């Protein structure tokens, strides 16, 4: 039986729309540092991994959480993944802008994993994610730690000259 959490347009929808809008505006407005296709890759990378992880562990046999108003897959759920896109773009953008040295990469990843976990905690509080079957926030923290590493590998693969 599907679980319905709420049917109103309320805080979880507002949170998704607000973050999506802010993210897209930021990506649009910041001075360009990458060619268009490279920027698209950073954006889509995160949307892709968001969908892969969510559609692997949030459905049976694991079924660790539901996204937004019900256990069904809705348009808003699809839009939720595009929040990740601008987040990943800014992650690489700031890394490139600050010209972070390789020895500080673990600290940089840790900071972003902590920020992502904090945002997810807020999203849980606002009803974007509904944890089930013993899922806990620190599982997400470890997933963020994992996800941010290949993201930077992708950046170095596309920009081999920037490996300082």
């Amino acid at each position, binding site marked *: 039986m599907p679980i319905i959490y709420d049917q109103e347009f309320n805080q979880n929808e507002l949170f998704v729309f607000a973050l999506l809008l802010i993210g897209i505006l930021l990506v649009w407005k910041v001075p360009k540092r990458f*060619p268009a*296709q490279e920027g698209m*890759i950073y954006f889509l*990378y995160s*949307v892709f991994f968001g969908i892969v992880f969510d559609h*692997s562990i949030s459905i049976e046999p694991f079924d660790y959480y539901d996204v937004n108003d019900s*256990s069904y*897959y809705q348009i808003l759920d*699809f839009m939720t993944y595009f929040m990740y896109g601008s987040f990943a773009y800014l992650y690489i953008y700031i890394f490139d802008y600050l010209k972070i040295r390789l020895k500080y990469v673990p600290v940089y990843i840790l900071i972003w994993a902590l920020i992502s976990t904090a945002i997810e905690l807020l999203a849980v509080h606002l009803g974007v994610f509904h944890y089930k079957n013993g899922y806990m926030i620190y599982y997400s923290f470890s997933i963020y730690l994992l996800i941010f590493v290949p993201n930077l590998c992708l950046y170095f693969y596309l920009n081999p000259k920037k490996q300082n």
Partner: protein
Amino acid sequence: MTLGLFVLIAWVMIIIFFLIPKSLDWKENMIMFFSLSIIIISLSTVLDLNLKLIQTSKKVEMFVPVWLFRNIIIPLIFIVFLNLFNFSKNKLKKIGIAALTIAGVFLIEKVTLITGIIKHTGWNQYYTLLTIITLMTFSFFFAKLVNRIGKGAK
């Protein structure tokens, strides 16, 4: 056995992808792979969870085969199609590549049905054909757009 079979199919698809002549560069291939995967994964969840037209196996031992089928094998079939289709200059070859792609997806679908990874509960082969043609058309035009974006940036 099912796990081994799907690991083998995924491995073969990856090898085929690396061996074929490519009409798209690496960045374009990445963008196409991400975009197609996003659509295919979303579509499979809608068909399974929402519409219940296809039931994916919920057994833990089937998790990896399902994962490989949905996230690797099917998107790669379309990526291989796209590269070969755009690479070929001959119309007859293009038709052959499209026909082979359709046959390939049908074959993989048949394997998933036989091994019990998926079960049709309202879905049929005509829907599969329609989905394949839609995805081929989308990937063809989206690849052109991505290519244009790349050229515009240079």
